[in-house]
């Protein structure tokens, strides 16, 4: 029996290999037309084509080759440090590519005519300078870059060079806000954090939009003089058996960065703090303390480092609860959270990544009940203190959107389909987004959806950072457990 099975699988493998084809091409830099060596190229089957994604690296001449590709429809995607991910057949860098069909038995090994070349474009760059009153660049000055969508999040930091110039590379397409940090100049003058072009309020900040490959220059931040404050105080923590304080660290966090202000229990002092909120995070031997303090003058605070408390979690089923710390200077890494694990106090966000048979309905912290909130991109935010107790509600009645993409002008095979869950209070800022590809018959589906109002669009001509073409999008209202079948006309410019 065993040998018969083995024989059968060998025969199947042989048949597959006989039917398999070779796919090859070269990856080029769009600007210079030079070949891109050592670039990762992935072959991604469309829904309906068997098998998983595979990837290879280009050789010294930028060439790649996938041997033995089973028949079906595939996307060819190239990724490389400093470049935007690119797909074969995209109408423009940054846009979705078109799938390629591998027919059974085609074995043109490296015929140049069959080459599936991919053109890559650099990621966006924002460059500029931080200048003083006389338009002289300030060297060695901190600069931060934030997303412009509220609440703004710090995504990158840099330091100006000897001429006061800064550069942020490897940026995703989108809209950003640039801001200089605070600090003291060579004399007694102090500068407060200042937004591009001028001003200290986020409302006065001028947004900078970049698309794939853009280099935005001349982002000149005119610094603003203003008072900086001193934050002093005392930090206390646990002691050892001899009554000696155990080691601890106190970190001061603002929305322009963080610094270590104490490495042991006792008094501490930090100068040059710009007005606004600061966070103080004490971390020590099995202890952690957190305070958020508004600074509008010199202030004195007492920070304690109480013992860490275990987390209790209920309702997640087989899924882990995913947590990420969100301090004023940005979000930390995502980490799965098991019941009983320790969670330092501070501002945290949580989510559960469900399979299609469920959706995440809500997360409540029962030790600190708060009114129901609207999650952003599926994340629920809490200020954590003490021993949090999370009650997670997963619904077993998710909604589904399925349909077929059609277009009289263009093949709908592998058509990109975008879905947004709308926020009734702010339609322009979706709560969450999804994307998929239609299969070789133009069919698509999104499963595991929460109830709500959705916007759906299909197009090869939408930039990944563009708000969906709202005028032409299809709007759908879904109830719990509902399946909506939506015929979707592809947008073709």
């Amino acid at each position, binding site marked *: 029996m065993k040998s018969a099975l083995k024989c059968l699988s060998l025969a199947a493998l042989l048949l597959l290999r006989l039917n398999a084809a070779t796919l090859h091409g070269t990856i080029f*830099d769009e600007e210079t037309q*030079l070949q891109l*060596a050592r670039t990762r190229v992935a072959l991604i089957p469309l829904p309906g084509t068997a098998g998983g994604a595979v990837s290879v690296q280009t050789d010294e001449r930028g060439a790649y080759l996938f041997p033995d590709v089973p028949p079906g429809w595939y996307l060819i995607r190239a990724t490389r440090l*400093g470049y935007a991910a690119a797909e074969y057949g995209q109408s423009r860098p940054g846009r979705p590519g078109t799938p390629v069909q591998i027919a059974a038995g085609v074995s043109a090994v490296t015929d140049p005519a069959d080459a599936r070349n991919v053109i890559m474009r650099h990621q966006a760059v924002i460059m500029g300078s931080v200048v003083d009153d006389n*338009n*002289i660049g300030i*060297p060695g000055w901190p600069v931060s870059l934030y997303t412009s969508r509220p609440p703004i999040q710090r995504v990158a930091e840099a330091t100006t060079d000897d001429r006061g110039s800064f550069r942020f590379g490897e940026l995703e397409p989108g809209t950003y806000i640039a801001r200089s940090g605070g600090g003291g100049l060579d004399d007694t*003058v102090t500068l407060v954090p200042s937004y591009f072009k001028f001003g200290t309020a986020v409302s006065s900040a001028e947004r900078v939009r970049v698309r794939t490959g853009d280099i935005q220059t001349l982002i000149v931040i005119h610094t603003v003089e203003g008072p900086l404050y001193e934050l002093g105080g005392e930090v206390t923590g646990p002691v050892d058996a001899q009554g000696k304080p155990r080691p601890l660290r106190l970190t001061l966090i603002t929305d322009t960065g963080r610094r270590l202000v104490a490495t042991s229990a006792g008094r501490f002092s930090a100068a040059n703090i710009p007005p606004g909120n600061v966070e103080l995070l004490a971390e020590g031997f099995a202890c952690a303390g957190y305070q958020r303090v508004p600074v509008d003058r010199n202030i004195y605070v007492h920070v304690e480092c109480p013992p860490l408390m275990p987390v209790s979690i209920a309702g997640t089923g087989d899924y882990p609860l995913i947590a990420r710390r969100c301090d004023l200077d940005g979000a930390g890494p995502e980490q799965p959270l098991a019941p009983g694990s320790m969670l330092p106090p501070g501002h945290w966000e949580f989510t559960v990544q469900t399979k299609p048979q469920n959706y995440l309905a809500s997360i409540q912290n029962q030790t600190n009940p708060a009114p129901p909130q609207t999650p952003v991109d599926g994340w629920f935010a809490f200020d954590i203190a003490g021993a949090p107790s999370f009650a997670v509600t997963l619904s077993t009645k998710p909604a589904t959107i399925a349909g077929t993409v059609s277009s009289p002008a263009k093949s709908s095979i592998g058509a990109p389909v975008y879905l947004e869950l709308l926020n009734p209070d702010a339609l322009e800022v979706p709560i969450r987004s999804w994307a998929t590809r239609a299969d070789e018959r133009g069919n698509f589906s999104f499963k595991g959806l929460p109830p709500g109002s959705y916007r759906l669009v299909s197009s090869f001509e939408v930039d990944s950072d563009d708000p969906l073409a709202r005028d032409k999008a299809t709007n759908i209202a879904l109830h719990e457990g509902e399946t909506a079948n939506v015929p979707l006309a592809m947008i073709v410019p």
Partner: protein
Amino acid sequence: MRWFFLRALAITLLPLCALPALRAAVVEGVVLDEETGNPLARTQVSLVPLPGTPASSTPVRTGPRGSFVILSVMPGWYTLRATRRGYAPAESGQLRPGRPGHAFEVADDHTTGFLEIKMSHLPAITGAVFDENGVGIAKWQVHVYSSGKPVRHIAQVLTDERGNYRVGELDPGTYLVRSGPGQLDDHTPVLATYAKAAIELADATAVSLRVGETKPNVNIKPVKGRFFTLSGTLIPIPDRTATLTLITDTGRKEIASAYSKPLPFSTAGVQPGPVELIVKGFDTLGNECGSYTKLLVDKDKDNLKLACSPYGPASFTFSGATPTGPVVIRRVDLDGAAEEHALKRNELLAPGHWEIQIPPGDYYISSVRNSGTLATRAGAWWGFDAGTYTRVAILLSSSPASIAGVVTTGGNPVAGAPIFLTNLGTGQAWTGRANPQGHYSMGGLAPGNYSIISGFDLDPNDLANAQKLSTVSTSEGNTSTQPLELVLP
């Protein structure tokens, strides 16, 4: 407009401010950026008296519009100097950026004319590190070395995501630029490579920089090659920990840490060339121990035995004369020089290469020997290898030579003329100024041959090619007279 107002205000108030010092005068002016003409706020400005002017003044900072006023200046001759981060030091009346300025006289109870200092940025080098196809290599190390011997590592940066780099705040001079060693994404080993594509120092293309210059397109195409492996045993003192650090001219990394017992170590990916192996740790009494090994790696090296040996305080003995001030010392590894500091009595010098600098005085340094071995010399620094026992003997001669004379132009003496003096044997260079009568005197010199020249438009980094360079021989205890004709632009 605003600084004109400030100037007027300052002039109005100055007589009141100057009242307590009746003979004192006022020096005022503005500091500007040479390139844009914009005022440079918060720039430090100081008066430097010429030889013969027995005065000193406290530096001041320019105001928000770049203007400054120095009150209570004693009469005499001065140069005016400005310093600011990112800019080359500049002097009033200099003909070009990087050149010495002109001296001026401050008279009794008088305000000088409104002085202007234009500052230029320190030079920078920019370029890219390219792969075999001419595509920039992202996040790759780039190192900058001074090109004069000994070649010294002075800066390190990473290329950006497009393979470009920039190294700023460099002093004018000549440099070598080199990409670091490493592995490409497909694990191809790439050797440290000098611009444009040289493995050997002799084939490197040097980059010459002047004040205010940004040298573009200093591109490097790294060469593929083979790395080597170093292996052996790290031997700590029983019950104590020792660490082993590998230092190359492109960086350093800790490669082993052993507690109590000998520990085999092996480190791969070592670039061909010189390496230093530093052992650091403590003995059973808590005293420092260590060792220093310098190797030339041209193949895999095995069976290295590196122990943590106790060492005692270094002794420095001076004979012939007493130094006029503290001796300065710094550690110099292959990856660069550490911060210098004043040598402390009975200082523990960890095994390795060190350099000392003896302050100038009415003596010259006849010799520096470590346990009988002559120290190497790099400009004003004397280098030696510290080991288990470090005994440095410095012989100073109290009969130094000197060179003196008058700088003239058209038969007239030149007040404050800049003097450039170079020892032709050691390459050590000095600068000075003539006094208001054009007299100069450069003392504390060792016997030998010197080149000397005076001019306001001389490039201190390119004196060897200057016209009218005079050569002077000096002998112990004697003053050589050398009249100088000012080199005109």
